[in-house]
């Protein structure tokens, strides 16, 4: 029998490329996943983001939030040492613990403000693209107006508008400064414009296609055509824009908090951990800005890698 199997073996190692060609065709999703996996930096980026998430989430099992907000004036501005890995800040709070909790807040802000920007951008872009005419003209002028002010200016004005008196709030047994909601609103309201333009441009070309004409002939309502046919078909650029938007949202949070208009202490965020660092840098205090910055930079870098990979993977014109 063994002889027989030996003689059969060569036949089993047939041309894999030919076999793949014979196999069932892959779905667009599978093809995209395959292209994504071949993008080395995208894989590094996703792994990096996963490690970052694990660090931030499991960290809160080792350090309580109370500890991260605990003032220890006797130990203020201590340099990194085994009992405080990243040192302490100007009121003696442990920076390592604050980076864990600040990371949770920064990521929550990033994801929620991107969700808000998606809602606004898709709605405005979708309506402008589908209805064209005066709806389009007004919505697009409004979008251009929002784009014509440097975004940090808008962030400052809006931060002032919503930021005057903020109550604290409780969620999932934890107390947050209400400024977290303010920052989400402010960033979401200032970052929908590119999305709106992308969605509009895509829908403008899609709505001339035959299948839309067919839907119309069948009497499908405008809303349903928009929501069920047009927007799902423009999902690829939306995903890419949302990923890159996450990086931008995390930077924006850091900017406004750095300027003192963002998340208010004692709630930590990666941005507000640094807000005193300019005055302290002269005294040689480097840990207060270096560690939060590094976490911000790494997260942005990983997110941009993933975004780049997604852009390549979701473009059907690219071959595997």
């Amino acid at each position: 029998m063994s002889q027989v199997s030996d003689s059969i073996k060569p036949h089993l190692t047939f041309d894999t490329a030919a076999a793949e060609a014979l196999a069932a065709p892959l779905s667009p999703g599978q093809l995209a996943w395959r292209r994504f996996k071949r993008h080395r930096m995208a894989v590094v980026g996703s792994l990096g983001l996963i490690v970052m998430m694990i660090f931030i989430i499991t960290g809160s099992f080792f350090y309580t939030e109370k500890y991260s907000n605990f003032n220890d004036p006797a130990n203020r501005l201590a340099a990194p040492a085994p009992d405080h890995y990243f040192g302490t800040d100007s009121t003696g709070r442990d920076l390592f613990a604050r980076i864990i909790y600040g990371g949770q807040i920064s990521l929550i802000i990033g994801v929620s403000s991107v969700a808000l920007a998606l809602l606004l951008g898709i709605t405005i872009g979708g309506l402008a693209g589908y209805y064209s005419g005066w709806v389009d003209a007004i919505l697009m002028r409004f979008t251009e107006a929002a784009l014509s002010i440097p975004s940090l200016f808008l962030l400052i004005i809006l931060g002032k508008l919503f930021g005057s008196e903020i109550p604290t709030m409780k969620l999932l047994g934890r107390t947050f400064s209400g400024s977290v909601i303010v920052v989400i609103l402010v960033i979401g309201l200032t970052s929908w414009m590119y999305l709106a333009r992308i969605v509009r441009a895509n829908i403008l070309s899609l709505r001339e296609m035959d299948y839309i004409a067919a839907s119309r002939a069948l009497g499908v309502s405008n809303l349903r055509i928009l929501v069920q046919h047009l927007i799902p078909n423009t999902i690829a650029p939306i995903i890419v824009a949302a990923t890159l938007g996450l990086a931008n949202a995390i930077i924006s949070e850091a900017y406004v908090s750095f300027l003192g208009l963002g998340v208010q202490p004692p709630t930590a965020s990666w941005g507000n951990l640094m807000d005193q660092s300019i005055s302290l840098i002269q005294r040689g205090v480097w840990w207060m800005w270096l560690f939060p910055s590094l976490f911000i930079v790494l997260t942005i870098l990983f997110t941009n890698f993933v975004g780049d990979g997604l852009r390549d993977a979701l473009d059907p014109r690219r071959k595997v």
Partner: protein
Amino acid sequence: MTTYILRRLIQGIFILMIITTVSFGLTRMASDPMAQYTLGRISSEDRARIRKNLGLDQPIPVQYFKWLSLAVRGDFGYSITNRQPVSELIMQRLPQTLVLMVTAEVVIIILSALLGIYSAVKQYSLFDNVLTGLSFVGFSLPIFFIALTLMFIFAVQFKEWGLPYLPTGADVWKFTDLSELVTHLILPVASLAIIQVAGYTRYLRSSMLEVLSQDYIRTARAKGLIERAVVVRHALRNAALPLVTLIGLDAPALLAGAIVTETVYSWPGMGRLFWQQAGRGDYPTVMAILLIVATAVVVFQILTDIAYTVVDPRIRLS
């Protein structure tokens, strides 16, 4: 062409109307300019009188149209907190911002042109690979990280190590001394340049690569032109077109200055003025800066579009 420019101008004015309406409303609602009078030294009648004198007792839409009718004639009113004409306040800051921003822009353009061209010509060389990696990282860096790192190394640590160090702040200094100006400029300009250079280099590299692979470049080489002429006179001209547009669209933001850089290096520019006055509810100053910046953006957009048709005859405006 004329109708196109006219239509763009009308659209531009419409956009400016939206911007001023929305930002006036937001700024006025965001903070009360009267807040500075609540120190208890002023009676409530006086408060009411000041409020009336400043026109703050009227409905916000009325205030807006009053402000607009003066602003279009170039009168931005008086700063509420400094009691100085806004135009004077801005003219104090504008030169400093321009010195910083024009220097930064010159450095940015020269560096990105050199790096972008070199890395495209030597595609996949060690230099190109390192630069591509670095520019991806540089592009992702937030400016406060760069500014604080440079400041820590070249101002704080160099001083500690006894090396010649650079100044950290620019609050008290004079324009007259050129060497002092230069030493104060190095760090802020470097901070501003790194991110932009990273972005523009990536852009120029890819558009150079695209142009270099075209037939007319091969023709130029085939007729025996030296490589430098091919790269600079034939390729760069076409490759730089999109970059010129990009710079044209980014440039007006320079007028406003860079809020974070100016804050870190305490540079007395427009960006920092905006940030400070927005915090004090000084809406005449805030609105004036916004209007200047937004007008610059809109005007530059139209100019860039027109310039594009001049340098690239393939594009027709309609």
